């Protein structure tokens, strides 16, 4: 059984990341992105017969599909949740492909939005997680996810080196990409390695410029049957393979957390796609922090375990480079609209695959793209291979 090539992403819409949108609510942002994706796909509302709506960080979740079906005026014949946090964009695409492949729907709308209000929620992040709070909160706040990923980076430094001067490569190359993306949060601000190294420590050993940029925003995309997709206006972006791995919720779990969960998902993704990591032309890898990307590169087979921090020094991750990575700027420089941040890697992959990324369009031919998502505290990750080549 495989869903290789059975479905394609046929429409996308990415809302501009804004520092906050206290003027808008989640349904409004979800609707704007959803209608944009339907318009982009050249479809009509009636064509949308499946939906996967992912709640925002605050989890305004209950009955979100039904709420948005009514709000939009659609009546899908299949709907479900995704619920893997930052991994929901990639996972949603793979799940939608499976739904289409199973004949449950022809066009599945997948969407997520965040109406971050910094006044309501400091840092834009949710309140205590009831399943974790009693084991963490009494010992002091971790500054959102920074503390979790700082512990990963600390352990990686301890085992393999890979200090901030090396990790900075990810932040700098992604910023160069953002400087060519007019809607990126940091479009107008270039940075150097020294800027990253000299930015203030947020949580040792992570520096400010190694961290995500929380924003408001939203994303939607539509996954359709491959045979039907060919008659639509956009070049279909086929899903060749995808997988998810969910090993744990949190760090109390006695596992080796410098091994990215995507390690297992990537193996299955590449096996299904019938390609390997070194066949990939463009990478859109979930970037909450510099260390996240380095460990995903290791886990996905681009670099050996423990060698990632050195290996990245020899790569050019800009849109002009040998291995373009997070060409929209990534969530560190483009922006992270809550769990919709992970959707931005999917929509950016589609823009690049179509050759429609404007100023930041990758210079070399784009045939195969690898996209990842990551949820929670390095808890669950997904991978996906995309192509525009119907014969790939």
């Amino acid at each position, binding site marked *: 059984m495989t869903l290789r090539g059975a479905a394609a992403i046929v429409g996308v819409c990415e809302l501009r990341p804004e520092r906050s949108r206290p003027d808008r609510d989640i349904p409004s942002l979800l609707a704007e992105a959803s209608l944009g994706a339907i318009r982009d796909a050249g479809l009509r509302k009636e064509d949308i017969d499946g939906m996967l709506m992912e709640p925002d960080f605050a989890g305004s979740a209950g009955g979100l599909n039904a709420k948005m079906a009514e709000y939009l005026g659609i009546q899908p014949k299949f709907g479900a949740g995704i619920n893997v946090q930052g991994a929901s964009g990639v996972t949603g695409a793979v799940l939608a492909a499976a739904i289409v492949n199973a004949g449950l729907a022809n066009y599945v709308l997948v969407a997520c939005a965040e109406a971050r209000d910094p006044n309501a929620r400091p840092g834009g992040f949710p309140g205590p997680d009831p*399943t974790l709070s*009693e*084991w963490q909160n009494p010992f002091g*706040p971790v500054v959102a996810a920074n*503390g979790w990923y700082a512990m990963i980076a600390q352990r990686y430094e301890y085992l393999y080196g890979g200090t901030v001067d090396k990790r900075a490569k990810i932040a700098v190359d992604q910023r160069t990409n953002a400087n060519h993306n007019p809607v990126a949060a940091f479009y107008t601000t270039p940075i150097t390695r020294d800027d990253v190294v000299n930015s*203030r*420590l947020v*949580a040792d*050993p992570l520096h400010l410029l190694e961290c995500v940029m929380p924003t408001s925003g939203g994303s939607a995309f539509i996954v359709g049957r491959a045979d039907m997709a060919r008659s639509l206006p956009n070049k279909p972006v086929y899903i060749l393979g995808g997988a998810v791995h969910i090993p744990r919720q949190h760090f*109390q779990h006695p596992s080796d957390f410098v091994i990215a969960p995507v390690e297992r998902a990537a193996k299955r993704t590449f096996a299904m796609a019938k390609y390997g990591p070194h066949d990939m032309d463009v990478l859109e890898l979930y970037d909450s922090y510099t260390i996240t990307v380095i460990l995903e590169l290791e886990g996905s087979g681009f670099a050996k375990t423990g060698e990632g921090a050195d290996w990245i020094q020899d790569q050019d991750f800009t849109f002009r480079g040998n291995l373009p990575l997070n060409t929209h700027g990534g969530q560190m420089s483009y922006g992270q609209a809550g769990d919709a941040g992970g959707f931005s890697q999917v929509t950016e992959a589609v823009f690049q695959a179509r050759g429609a990324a404007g100023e930041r369009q990758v210079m070399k031919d784009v045939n195969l793209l690898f996209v990842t998502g990551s949820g929670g505290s390095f808890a669950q990750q997904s991978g996906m291979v995309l192509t525009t080549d119907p014969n790939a």
Partner: protein
Amino acid sequence: MPYSKPLIDHPTYNSKEWWAATQQHRLLYQRCRLCQTPVFPPRDACPGPDCLGFQANEWQESAGRGTIYSFTTVRQPMDPRFNDDVPYTLALIEMDEGFRMWSNITGTPVEDVRIGQRVAVAWDDVTDEVALPKFTVAG
């Protein structure tokens, strides 16, 4: 002055006994009586491989010793109640009994904390009912 920092926001029925034991400075964890897997945080299911144990986890008392698995120094508190504490060290402790827990390292300057250091529990009696198991670097 009453203790104003966050404590047990959402105790589960599995954790009540754990918190009650802190008052007597007893650091509890669970172990599955079917497969001996150490379990923390406390729960009803055994997470051990190929074990279907349910409500088979039994309370054990930890000797309170372990090794720093990783840590971070927090310099910028998001919560004003911790303003006087920064910088402070958050750490993951790999306990000798095979479970891992989140805590603070106290009594050692933040710049001297290292992965691999041996640590021992140092109870902080924050209220009459609850003590927090913090850790100090052991000689």
